[in-house]
């Protein structure tokens, strides 16, 4: 029984990968960088140290000049004066705008006050409204009573 099975199992050995797959997979794997552990042992320590120094210098060259140029440009008197002038102009422009709008509003208010034809200041209208107000009708009798006590 087991011998038959073993023979059957051995026949599965006929299963083979696709040659195209073998070629592609192998070329991709081999083309990749060798394992990191191997690289660590292959690079001499002195070379590693020199490389580290080179990286530090490169960073210094890239970073520090940039910072210097920023600080110098920010302290340049001409540039500061220019910024200050720009600031004044901005303030003045805002003030002009404010005055323009406020003057218009003031002028409108004066005109309205001086105009007797204005509807809400019309004396005839006010008198007619007064007639409609029921001043004799107390909404709260207690208040009237208290007021009488205080006044009289």
């Amino acid at each position, binding site marked *: *029984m*087991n011998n038959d*099975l*073993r023979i*059957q*199992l*051995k*026949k*599965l*050995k*006929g*299963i*083979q*990968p*696709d040659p195209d*797959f*073998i070629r592609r*997979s*192998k070329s*991709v*794997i*081999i083309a*990749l960088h*060798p*394992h*990191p*552990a*191997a*690289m*660590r*042992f*292959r690079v001499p320590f002195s070379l590693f140290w020199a490389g580290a120094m080179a990286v530090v210098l490169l960073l210094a060259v890239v970073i520090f000049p940039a910072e210097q140029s920023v600080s110098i440009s920010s302290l340049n008197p001409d540039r500061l004066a220019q910024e200050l002038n720009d600031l004044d102009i901005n303030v003045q422009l805002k003030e002009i705008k404010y005055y323009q709008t406020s003057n218009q509003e003031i002028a409108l208010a004066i005109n309205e006050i001086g105009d007797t034809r204005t509807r809400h200041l019309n004396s005839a209208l006010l008198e007619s409204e007064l007639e409609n107000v029921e001043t004799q009708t107390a909404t709260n009798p207690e208040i009237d009573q208290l007021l009488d006590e205080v006044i009289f």
Partner: protein
Amino acid sequence: MKEEESLIQKARKGDGNAFGKLYDEYLPRIYRFIFLKTGRKQDAEDITHQVFLNAWQNMGGYKSKGFPFSSWLYRIASNAVIDHYRTRREHRDIETVPEDAVAETPDFENRLDTAFELELVKTALNRLEEDQQNILLMKFVDELSNKEIAEALGKNEGTVRVIQHRALKQLKKHIDEQRPQDTTKEA
């Protein structure tokens, strides 16, 4: 064996050609092992590629400890298959056995019979437990020794022998269950 040891040492130092020779030597059996466990050509190719890529990237940490290089590769392959099923839980239907597997048989009827028998075996194999599958494939398809199998699977040799015995019995049972009844006898 000495030649393989030399290739391993070179590969550990990053020699791509040396690793390429190890790849050529072990790819077919690792592929076959994975294919019989996944049942799909595409999955088998993807996982096999990943196994050798992992091996290449971890060669620096490889120590033989008296065991063959194949045990290490089988261990990576076995873990890769487990990871594959962990991430893709869906069940895959088993593909038919490739024609190459039956190409040696001379006539068409024999080829059909053989393909049918192999399909039965493959389907029955896939119904076995993980360890049983691994041990049968390593032992009878790839002809590894019990010691090599034990190393690859992290078990002792006695356990491997017991699992192997149970696996064969179980495989026989599954095959008998799948095999259609012989109707000619009844007639």
